């Protein structure tokens, strides 16, 4: 076991606060177990830092099983690291080589300001959802189960779009820092389903306009977002959002 242990050199973005000047700091981590996740490796680094009376490296995480979307930063220029379809909490040290230097920096976008170190403020995503990424339901008696029929092909596509965990990797990876995949996934998921149809026009308008207010860039159809998405959500959802928006230009509903 001990023979497998790795040595890793880290170059981590350290920034004390939102308005503070940040810089890269170098750390060497010895005896890294290759079966640790990237976050567990950072936990070990932080133990040492705390022990030495220094400020630990701040990063976000919650479930650590790739389903909540809390974690995420850029590793060697790639959102969530080089491996496709994965979050940093599910990225293991065995995918790096012994002695490697790894550059770690936060998501970079005007709409995602840095709070501290690797933690960014993603409230802009919440505001996009609040603008229309929901279905208004009337209260009243509960409808019968299966009273609303949805075809398997439609429900599959809607489900694929609904897989978004809102981590922000799409924005981080996009050369334009556009939130088109995040917004498109929600617009298209709800527009496909009967429950979401009544509000589809209003939703497309409000969500696209909120995305603009937040200062995200404009989609250039490069598709780096899809490559970086831990849930591999397709940019077909962006095309669907374009159709929804086009429709919403001319209709009231």
């Amino acid at each position: 076991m001990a023979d497998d242990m790795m040595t890793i050199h880290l170059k981590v973005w350290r920034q004390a606060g939102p308005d503070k000047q940040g810089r890269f700091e170098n750390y060497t981590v010895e005896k890294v177990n290759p079966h640790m996740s990237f976050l567990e490796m950072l936990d070990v680094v932080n133990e040492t830092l705390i022990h030495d009376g220094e400020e630990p490296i701040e990063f976000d995480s919650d479930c650590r099983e790739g389903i909540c979307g809390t974690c995420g930063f850029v590793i060697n220029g790639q959102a969530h690291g080089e491996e496709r379809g994965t979050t940093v909490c599910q990225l293991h040290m065995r995918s790096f080589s012994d002695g490697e230097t790894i550059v770690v920096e936060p998501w970079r976008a005007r709409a995602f300001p840095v709070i501290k170190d690797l933690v960014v403020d993603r409230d802009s995503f919440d505001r996009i959802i609040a603008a229309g990424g929901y279905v208004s339901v009337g209260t009243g008696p509960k409808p019968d189960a299966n009273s609303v029929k949805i075809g398997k092909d439609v429900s599959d596509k809607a489900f694929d779009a609904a897989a978004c965990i809102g981590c922000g990797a799409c924005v981080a990876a996009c050369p334009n820092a556009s939130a088109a995949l995040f917004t498109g996934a929600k617009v298209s998921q709800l527009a496909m389903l009967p429950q979401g149809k009544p509000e589809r026009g209003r939703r497309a308008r409000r969500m696209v306009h909120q995305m603009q207010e937040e200062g995200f860039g404009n989609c250039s159809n490069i598709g780096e977002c899809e490559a970086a998405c831990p849930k591999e959500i397709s940019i077909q959802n962006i095309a669907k959002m374009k159709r929804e928006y086009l429709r919403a230009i001319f209709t009231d509903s």
Partner: protein
Amino acid sequence: MIPLKRALSSPTGRKFVMSISGIALVLFVIVHLLGNLTLYVPDGGETFNRYAAGFEAMGPFLYVIELGLLAVIVIHMTWGIATALKNRKARPEKYAESVDSKGGPSNLSLASKNMIVTGVALGIFLVVHIWHFRIRKVYVAETTEIDGNEHADLYALVHAAFSDPLWVAFYVGAMLFFGFHLRHGFWSALQSLGAMKPEWSKGIYALGFFVALVLTVGFMGIPLYIYFVG
């Protein structure tokens, strides 16, 4: 309903403007190339000059078409430059380790990353090109007789230009930018409009390469043909 101003400036709406103007330019460019293919006819320029003279027969209607075309180009350029500037502002602090492609479904390439660069190069090219052949046709060109009428000898103007290796290099170079712009542009325009079924996406991206290649080779061949063959 969305107010017009908003519809033309929102992230999705502004790309409608770019893609519709872009598609209009692609259609124009296809017609332009088809016409210019007459330059390949080895008859001392008679076919080409006849084709060019045909435009004069349109009278003032020609100006309407030319102004319309100019408007489309100006709109495309204005929206393109404004969009690129906004995109730049969306990431004020750059990554230290520059993001290269994660591969897979991504279309990140020299072409897709540099639309604004190839676009601005095309804008500069267009100014030179319009001066070179459109304006000089009126003020510089000799005349030639077609069916008893005097017409500008546009062929002689083109021929003289493409006997100069510097002009040949300029046009060949410009067409490289054009090819890269279209390689991403064709697919991008259809995706921006949402004008595709998921199953078509790969095919349209491939078609974009084909369209860019055919148009680029077609245009690029003209100066090369005239320089090397005559």
